[in-house]
């Protein structure tokens, strides 16, 4: 028998039980679609996290004020106002910290803002011109803050894309317009390009003003020199740890702290946060794919069940074929080919369903689904393999039937 003959025989048998074959295929199909979609969802989440890492800058270190011990009571993390503009300036020294490329001190407070009759609420970030590079952002229209703005405590503001969209009809129309931040008038000089959201923070829902203006005009407070965070950009991903060491020793020295354990600041590589998020999403993907794989196995058991029923039901046919000269091998390959046909049809159907789901699902649940061609091709192979494995036992049973008994059965 040629392969074509075997295929034709298998197709005839499947065609003889259309509904049953369709239901069997459905089991495989759902399993494959589930695997493809969960892996795609996981891959989508992974891509999102990776995108966020890239958008934040991979070389980013964040210095935050640590706990301060006063009168034997240790305050919580970030409770102190131990970081100052002076610290930021010192860290910017290429002599003391050669592996730090740029420094951006940052103060931040959420405020309401109005432009004409429109109003909005967003974090106001007071910072310096280097913020743009450190955060890997770009300007969509107008310009970013300049050193002159900082020096002169200019009342200028650069809007995030979302803020601009909510206050003005277009980014271009925002340039030159007036925005009141907590009633203090500012002039819009630029709009940032969209960066998307990451780690539950929308990077486009913010405005930036010169740090000097923010401290003196907007935030007030007792210590106008303190900052809430200092963003550091290492010269390259390879010099991250060197930059970390330099910032750490420099700040300990500046703050007069001899024991590193008593440091009143914390340095966090931005990527460590995100790699945690990344590994969590990876774990979830593995978990979900595991559940999906179980459904695929259930589909495989369905194939085995149907083939066993088929063997029992077609026992006379098997007897007849043996009487006509079919060898055990010919009978076995007939049933295996039937199993593989069911598997491949289920696999291809599952891929189609998976692709439709990958297109439709993001609109429903708001999460991206990334389908890789490798996963799609692999899914069809896995489906065929699962069906083949499921077919081995029924096929062997059919092959071993004694022709006399097979012919006699009713």
């Amino acid at each position: 028998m040629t392969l074509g003959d075997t295929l034709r025989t298998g197709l005839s048998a499947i065609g003889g039980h259309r509904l049953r074959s369709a239901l069997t295929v459905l089991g495989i199909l759902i399993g494959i679609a589930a695997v493809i979609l969960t892996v795609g969802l996981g891959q989508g989440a992974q891509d999102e996290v990776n995108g966020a890492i890239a958008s934040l800058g991979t070389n980013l270190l964040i210095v935050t004020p640590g706990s301060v011990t006063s009168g034997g009571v240790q305050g919580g993390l970030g409770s102190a106002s131990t970081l100052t503009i002076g610290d930021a300036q010192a860290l910017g020294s290429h002599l003391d910290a050669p592996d730090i490329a740029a420094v951006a001190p940052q103060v931040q407070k959420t405020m309401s803002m109005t432009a004409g009759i429109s109003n909005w609420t967003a974090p106001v970030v007071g910072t310096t011109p280097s913020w743009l590079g450190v955060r890997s952002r770009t300007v969509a229209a107008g310009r970013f803050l300049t050193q002159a703005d900082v020096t002169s405590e200019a009342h200028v503001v650069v809007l995030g894309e979302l803020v601009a969209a909510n206050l003005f009809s277009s980014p271009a129309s925002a340039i030159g317009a007036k925005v009141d931040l907590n009633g203090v008038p500012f002039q819009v000089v630029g709009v940032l390009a969209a960066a998307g959201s990451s780690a539950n923070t929308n990077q486009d829902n913010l405005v930036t003003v010169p740090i000097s203006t923010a401290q003196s005009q907007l935030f007030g407070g007792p210590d106008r020199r303190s900052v809430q965070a200092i963003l550091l950009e290492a010269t390259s991903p390879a010099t991250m740890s060197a930059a970390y060491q330099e910032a750490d020793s420099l700040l300990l020295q500046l703050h007069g702290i001899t024991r590193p354990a008593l440091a009143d600041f914390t340095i966090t590589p931005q990527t460590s946060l995100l790699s945690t998020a990344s590994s969590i999403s990876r774990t979830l993907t593995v978990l979900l794919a595991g559940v999906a794989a179980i459904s695929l196995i259930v589909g495989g058991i369905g194939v085995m069940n149907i083939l066993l029923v088929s063997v029992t039901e077609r026992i006379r046919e098997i007897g007849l074929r043996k009487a006509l000269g079919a060898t055990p091998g010919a009978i076995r390959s007939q049933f295996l080919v039937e199993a593989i046909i069911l598997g491949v049809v289920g696999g291809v159907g599952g891929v189609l369903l998976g692709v439709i789901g990958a297109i439709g699902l993001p609109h429903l649940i708001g999460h991206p689904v990334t389908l890789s061609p490798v996963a799609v091709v692999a899914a069809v192979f896995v489906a065929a393999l699962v069906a083949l494995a499921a077919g081995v036992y029924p096929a062997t049973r059919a092959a071993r039937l004694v022709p006399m008994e097979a012919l006699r059965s009713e």
Partner: protein
Amino acid sequence: MVAGRVAPERLGLEGERVSLIELTHVGKVYGTGDVAVQALKDASLTVDQGEYVAIMGPSGSGKSTLMYLLGCLDVPTSGRYILNGNDVRSLDEIELAAVRNHEIGFVFQQFNLLASLEAWRNVELPLLYGGERRRHVRRDQAIEALERVGLGHRYHHRPVELSGGEQQRVAIARALINRPALILADEPTGSLDSSSGTEILQLFEELNEAGVTIVLITHDPGVGSHAKRLLKIRDGRLSNSDARPTMGGATVAAQGSRRGPAGGALGASSL
């Protein structure tokens, strides 16, 4: 034209009788221990090339067992069975499949056609399992075999579109297609009305006259009477009878003799 497959080396000189089936003291036991059933006891039988033999017995007599043994669908528990030179007990499963494929054409009471296949695709099955890889050759030969049984024009019909008599003709075409040494028919008229049954028996006679060896198993004396030699089986014991069937018949088994008393002569004359 109808022609049985006759291996030249097994055709004796001057039309000498050549035995196709040699069954020597064959027994068959089903089950073991307390549940063992002796379905066939010490059966000896010789059938020559070109014979038309009927084996007749009531249900439970062991005639089905004998048919399965003769058809190599089962192997004897004891004794010796030589079919066209092959010692059946020494063959493995794959060799048995080849013997069934080449040497035997089966005709069953229930026709045993595959409902999902057209007539010609039912008929081609033995060629398929015999290793003929060219589909058009199988198709041509299948249609030729259908023409031999008078159904050449219905080759693309499915079994449900054919009458019982036509279905049995398709089954006979299938049995003939590999030019087997032996046609083994198990109650071939049992599911047919009497006129269709008569037609089938007539077809068998024509095939036999053209040289095909036929062993027909039946419980019906009316059917058995069409054969040229009649053997009776009862309680697992095989006995020979006259060439012309009678209800009495001799009780002496062939006991391994090379031919039955009258059947041998008939076998020779038909070659």
